[in-house]
């Protein structure tokens, strides 16, 4: 749902369950429960995804992670205006890059916060 909201929807596509109830689920209401249950599952996902986007927390974390490409030498790389010679000069001048954590567990925990 997060992916679909971020791209502004799926029109004219849609969600096709492409599902069937298990062979042993033979009651008529099994069909009802299966469809309603799956729709509710996505509805919960949609509400959580909308909250994630509205809070801007996770998007902000990702944007911050790439922020060195928003200006300076990084922006020049993105504009296609840099070169290996310039980057070498930058690396020699700047020394060892800072070790920046990928913070995987923080991202996972943040995602878990929305439910």
């Amino acid at each position: 749902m997060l992916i679909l909201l971020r791209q502004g929807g799926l029109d004219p596509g849609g969600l096709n369950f492409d599902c069937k109830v298990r062979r042993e689920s033979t009651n008529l209401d099994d069909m009802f429960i299966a469809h309603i249950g799956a729709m509710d599952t996505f509805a919960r996902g949609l509400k959580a995804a909308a909250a994630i986007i509205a809070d801007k927390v996770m998007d902000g974390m990702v944007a911050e992670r790439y922020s060195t490409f928003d200006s300076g030498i990084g922006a020049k790389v993105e504009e296609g205006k840099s070169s290996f010679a310039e980057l070498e000069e930058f690396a020699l001048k700047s020394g060892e890059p800072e070790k920046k954590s990928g913070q995987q567990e923080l991202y996972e925990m943040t995602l878990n916060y929305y439910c």
Partner: protein
Amino acid sequence: MQYGKPAANEANIIPPNSVDWLLQSNAIFDEISDYLLVKQKETGVKLLWGTSNLFSSTRFMNGGATNPNAHSFAFAAAKVKKCMEITHKLGGVNYVFWGGREGYQTILNTDVKRELDHMAAFFKMAIEHKKNIGAGFQFLIEPKPREPTKHQYDYDAQTTMGFLQNYGLQNDFKLNIEPNHTTLAGHDYEHDMWVASQYGFLGSVDSNTGDPLVGWDTDQFPMDGERAKQ
């Protein structure tokens, strides 16, 4: 030098992290490659390819050409620049990019499109630098689906060819296929060889084999005549 094949991985001949590492390693690389050149002339051994290690050091733990930190990206560029120059000096006929950490451990913290844009920018600058130094070697990308990262962008031959076409790099790159990586991608051993060859992208081969059951890269010597036949 790697044993068993005339290819040079700079991590095998340069010591690990130190202050002013880049300056020191470049100086050591110059000195050692002088020696390698003497030995090449003595023995007649030619250099199949050179490559740079952008995956062992912590400075590349989040990638080289796809590192979210522009400083690390610049460091990767500096390393590849030097390694290309040394490969040219040693008469290397190919230059390999194996993107061991050009991928992600979790997609949650990753801007995939931005990372691939950066990787393409990196390769375009490599093409430019190759022209600048007058090198004639062929650029090769070595696909692998994962390990050490959870997902590697150069997943398999078709994915990598799609990337090259998408960014207009198809005329400057071919593929270095390692069938052991092909099986890790869930294909038959010979699949990527066939596909790359049929599209004119087969440039070189890491001719090892893996174990069909263990599920990781074992780099074993090839002893299966049936596979070698294909």
